[in-house]
């Protein structure tokens, strides 16, 4: 696929989220950079949203923390947003 590069953290997010949902081919990640912060917009099928968020938001919190740690490799901060398409 010829998509704009998401960088290691974005690739990691796409890989992880695709493994959590029933419709992996409907997962998209877009990255927008502002200052030293990268905003990752993850979109999933509405029915898959709960599988990414997890009970009480536990899973999405873990995904965010993982993304923040990985973004350090790219010398930036990461903000992760997950929405239904």
């Amino acid at each position: 696929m010829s998509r704009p590069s998401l960088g290691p953290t974005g690739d990691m997010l796409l890989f992880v989220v695709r493994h959590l949902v029933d419709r992996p081919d409907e997962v998209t990640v877009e990255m927008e950079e502002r200052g030293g912060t990268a905003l990752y917009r993850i979109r999933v099928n509405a029915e898959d949203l709960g599988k990414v968020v997890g009970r009480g938001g536990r899973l999405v919190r873990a995904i965010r923390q993982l993304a923040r740690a990985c973004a350090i490799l790219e010398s930036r901060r990461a903000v992760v947003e997950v929405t239904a398409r």
Partner: protein
Amino acid sequence: MKSVQAEGRSVEEAVRQALAETGWAEDEVEVEVLSDATTGVLGWFGRRRTVVVRVRQREQEAEGPVAFLRELVRLLGLGPASVRAREMSDHVLVELSGPEVGLLIGRRGAVLESLQTVVGAVVARRSPEHKRVIVDIEGYRRKRQATLERLAARLAERAHRTGARVMLEPMSAADRRIIHLALRDNPFVTTHSEGEEPRRRVVISPRGGPRGRQGRA
């Protein structure tokens, strides 16, 4: 993702046909019904139902936690790393090691706990029957456990000696569990947790209640 189309007189027949062609197992595929039509109007004898299905094989490459973590480490470019699994009696221990994977431990193991949550969710989704997976990085959990056990013993001794409750720093659920287990059979103290996540902390109390200002001793 690989997929094939097949047809039959029922969904079951079409799926059987697809599995026979590809050699895939029923539990590793997803089925989508593309069309289901009955043709012929001349009563039952002239009728024919044709079902067309698409059968997709679920991605295989990252099924197990080992393959999943290998790919994750590769995507992050975290250098050469080894990922190995060990079957324990009640869980599978997956150990990551390498010069750069320490990044995934984080302060007090916070990132490791997140990674653990993610891997646990992926494994549970792929195979609900799977044993619990515990991820460790560079022996962090092992070392942390030894540190916490020493801390627990020291603070239990203090609680017993002074007769006062000892409150520990806020810790993750995994760390608190280590403290509780370490002191479970201690004859002089009891433990419980107080407060709300993420500031929940263990309290070690002398058995028989605190001998504080009331001076029951």
